[in-house]
């Protein structure tokens, strides 16, 4: 188990932490925008940067004062950080206890046929595979991956990501996986920590983080684009929100009647209704813009009587059936169990 407690690091104007995280024998994704401190956190754990405060313990051992090579934590870098004066084989052998282990890892990561090439001649995907083989060769007690797929083309990224998940799980060690890509973070992590401005905003299962973001930042960064301000109109038995002149049924939440809160609903959960009957959580609006994203349609709808815009994600087969045009009137339903109240909106 990797336990990070109260770790802080100041870099000029930027402050990381205090960070508290506990990683069991699982893959914990750390998701955050560039410059949020993800890499600094990994560096502090690996010992290549000295934290200003806080402790890192791995399997019960306090790592304070230990050199990077004495920690059992192995880093995997964005570009692989392969030693350019060595072949792929020499890179893996650099960390491996035996030649057999090199061959075994090369087989696992499917790089057997590029082992005798120099690092510079490898493709991006091969480079990362060799880098992973090399890091596994060091027999890590904890693996720290820093955006390992960030520079790969989409299809290779997708493939390697799908291979990585079972591989990382099979290691049965704490794995920290840092990325700025929400798809990667959710696909690879058993749990997901969202970071912003040097602080962990939320840490939970990916499903929970996506469904119930703890802060407006998490909501927005995980693509919960519908984030609105409303007034609490009812609680307990009858939790409702007053948003413009709509009254929305909402799941139970902790705010008081009369309080102004923010609520969000993921654009995948908004439903375009066919029925004409008036129901709770149903509202009328006009299509303001349709964006085709290739595998999705994003439809922005301006509801009557508010200035907010609701975004709806429609899968292409659904959109093909509806054929929404700009300016067209639509009726939207916001399912009450998809509504999530974030808390007091400042």
């Amino acid at each position, binding site marked *: 188990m990797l336990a990070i407690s109260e770790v802080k690091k100041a870099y000029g104007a930027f402050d990381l932490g205090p960070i508290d995280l506990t990683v069991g024998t699982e893959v914990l994704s750390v998701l955050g925008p560039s410059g949020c401190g993800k890499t600094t956190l990994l560096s502090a754990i690996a010992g290549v940067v000295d934290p200003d405060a806080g402790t890192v313990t791995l399997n019960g051992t306090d790592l304070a004062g230990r050199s990077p*090579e004495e920690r*059992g934590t192995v*880093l995997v870098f964005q570009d692989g*950080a392969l030693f350019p004066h060595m072949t792929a084989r020499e890179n893996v052998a650099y960390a491996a206890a035996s030649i057999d282990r090199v061959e075994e890892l090369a087989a696992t990561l499917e790089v057997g046929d590029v082992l005798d090439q120099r690092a510079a001649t490898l493709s991006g995907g091969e480079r990362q595979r060799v880098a992973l083989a090399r890091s596994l060769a*060091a027999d890590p007690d904890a693996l720290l991956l820093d955006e390992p797929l960030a520079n790969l083309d989409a299809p290779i990224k997708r493939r390697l990501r799908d291979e990585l998940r079972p591989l990382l799980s099979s290691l049965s060690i704490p794995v920290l996986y840092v990325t700025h890509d929400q798809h990667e973070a959710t696909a690879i992590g058993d749990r997901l920590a969202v970071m912003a401005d040097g602080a962990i905003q939320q840490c939970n299962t990916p499903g929970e983080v996506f469904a119930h973001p703890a802060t407006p930042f998490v909501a927005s960064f995980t693509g919960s684009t519908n984030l609105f301000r409303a007034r609490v109109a009812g609680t307990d038995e009858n939790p409702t929100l007053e948003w413009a002149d709509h009254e929305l049924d909402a799941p139970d939440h902790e705010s008081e009647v009369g309080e102004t809160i923010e609520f969000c609903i993921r654009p995948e959960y908004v439903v375009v209704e066919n029925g004409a009957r008036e129901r709770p959580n149903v509202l009328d609006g006009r299509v303001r813009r349709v964006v085709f994203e290739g595998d999705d349609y994003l439809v922005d709808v301006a509801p009557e009587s508010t200035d907010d815009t609701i975004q709806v994600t429609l899968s292409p087969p659904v959109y093909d059936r509806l054929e929404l045009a700009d300016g067209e009137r639509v009726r939207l339903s916001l399912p009450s169990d998809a509504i999530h109240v974030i808390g007091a909106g400042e």
Partner: protein
Amino acid sequence: MATRSDRSRTAIGGFDWLTVALVLGGVLCLYYLAPLVSLFLSVPSTALLDALGDPAVVSAASTSLVSASVSTALATVFGLPLAYWLARSEARWKNAVLAIVVLPLVLPPTVSGLVLLTVIGPNAPIGAFAVATGMPLTRSLAGIVLAQTFVASPFVVVTGKAAFEGVDRTLEHASRSLGKGRWTTARRVTLPLAAPGILAGVTLVFARAMGEFGATVMVAYYPQTMPIEVWDAFLEGGLDGAYPVAIVLVVVSIAALVVLNTVASNPWE
């Protein structure tokens, strides 16, 4: 529309910068090259061979080779760790240290010789002590080495620093996190990758030490090194007397250039 007319003006007022650069630069290159070609044309090869057998020339050559080799070794041993520290440290006073290292590079050689004499000259405490022990630091091989080291050693520091900076720090971090200590990391990652740059620095130190004149002439006119032999021969026998020794030095310089442009990584490339 203003931009459009601006465009045409630039086009009409067009002035071929490439040609200008190549003409001016060509004149400069010619100025560097012509004298050397002229030197080779001036010296009959028989005179050269005769000179190479002259005991004074042989003695100067061996003095230069020995002193330059020792100076280069000293500069490397003392300078390379400093170069690594300068490349990797984030200390505030790093730039002050760098300024001290650059100082001998901007100091006139005669002044370098003079300031050295204030420390190692026979009237200075250290120099006097050395004379008393029978190993004087002036007019001796030791003096030549001291002068050459002072003047030439900064090259291995600044070039080595650039070479170490060229090694991505991430690679060192990767090596350490893979369980290898500082020493293994230095030996197997940092030094192999910095080697061409370090070799360039060592080559420059050697070339500078071989050619050192201004400081050496102040600190140790004797035993004569080759640059001093050139001067001496020029005073005695004019150009014709100095040519053969000069040609040997030119060959050494060209060899250094070849090293810089092949196995070493030319710091100016």
